[in-house]
């Protein structure tokens, strides 16, 4: 029997039907067509499926879809405002902080969560915060620089 779930995704009231053992990641991608959230390992190791659940950074592969009833979800699709991309997205482009791009939505969501808590993180704090996001292309340096540059930009500084 399918379960009827009412939730909010990127501020919009949303409902879907799912089996008890479907993950939030599967529902986002396959039912709601929000394919910006990527599937990497599906065991919580890579961070490609990162989303915000009630303001908390989580791996959507390790959340069962029925759990989000009455909760609020933010995905990569909610980060840009219309045509206006987020400063993190702009800095990732400027620093060439992506190659294949599979890890990028997860990194943007995780980095945004960091900067909302700590507008001025050190490089070390940034590297530890993002330790659950894996990238096999960039070697991480460009990503870290993009995040620190975005943080400076958000603080109104130039680096």
């Amino acid at each position, binding site marked *: 029997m399918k379960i009827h779930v009412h939730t909010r995704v990127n501020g919009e009231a949303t409902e879907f039907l799912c089996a008890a*053992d479907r993950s939030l990641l599967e529902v986002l991608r396959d039912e709601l067509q929000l394919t910006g959230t990527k599937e990497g390992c599906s065991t919580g190791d890579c961070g490609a499926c990162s989303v915000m659940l009630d303001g908390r950074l989580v*791996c959507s592969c390790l959340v069962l879809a*029925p759990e989000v009833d009455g909760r609020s979800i933010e995905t990569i699709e909610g980060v840009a405002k219309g045509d206006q991309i987020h400063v993190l997205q702009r800095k990732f482009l400027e620093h060439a902080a992506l190659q294949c791009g599979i890890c990028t939505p997860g990194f943007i969501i995780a980095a945004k*969560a960091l900067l909302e808590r700590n507008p001025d993180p050190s490089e070390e704090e940034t590297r530890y915060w993002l330790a659950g996001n894996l990238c096999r292309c960039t070697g991480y340096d460009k990503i870290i620089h993009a995040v620190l540059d975005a943080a400076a930009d958000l603080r109104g500084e130039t680096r």
Partner: protein
Amino acid sequence: MERAPLEEVRYESPTTIAHAAQLLGEPGARVLAGGTDLIVQMRTGRTAPRVFVDVKRIPELCRIHLDASKLWLGAAVPAALVVENRDANELFPGLVEAVDLIGSTQIQGRASVGGNLCNSSPAADTVPALIAIGAVCVIAGPEGERRVPVESFNSAPGRNVLGAGELLVGFEIPRPPARTADAYLRFIPRTEMDIAVVGAGVSVTLDASGVCTHARVVLGAVAPTAFLVPAAASALVGSRGEDAALARAAAASSEAARPIDDKRGTIVYRRKVSGVLTKRAAAAAFERARGARTR
């Protein structure tokens, strides 16, 4: 384990302990707290739950609260909330240290201390830390409520004292006496995102002149379950944490360790590291206890 047909799998989110206990009496029922072990085990085919009992809508399991005699830590409270909690940081820095070592930021948003214990891994980081501070499990079930000290909860890798229909509700952690502090250290071959090769939790209580009157030393990942090392604790009692006492405690821990050889470390290496971490964690606990406020 046989996989249940899809249509039989149910998701339940009880709001009371009694309802959860009733559901957990059903065949194939599993507790879903943070899901960071259960869902992984399900995806890799190690388990096939028939009923997911999501316990995160039960208020007692989601609360962290300090009263006059103890800290209450609900079994399903996510790691991130423990790390952010002011009382936990002030009273039990070693526990917070252990909780903060678990997984990534994403994992800490979901994974709970209760789940870490109930997964019954010998290498679970929070377990030695909980034992060091005398945490007691509150378990609810069909026969009512019972209390089990954390050191008696796990019986073997993957096994614990929970029976059918029983549920870990949370932990009662007694408020520490004056000049008491804890510390937890683990060794992994990298700096983040790994499983302990050895873990050591220590709690010490000092008298007004700085002499240790009470100690608990606990090792993880070097036996089928985390365990107390009374001989190491005895070596610390009566001392001020000077090198000779720390060395005796270290020797006692190395002696007590009963590790296995595996890809993470050899028996000889783990025995050695058990002593080293005992010494370092004890030194940190003494340092903190000297600075701790008189509560």
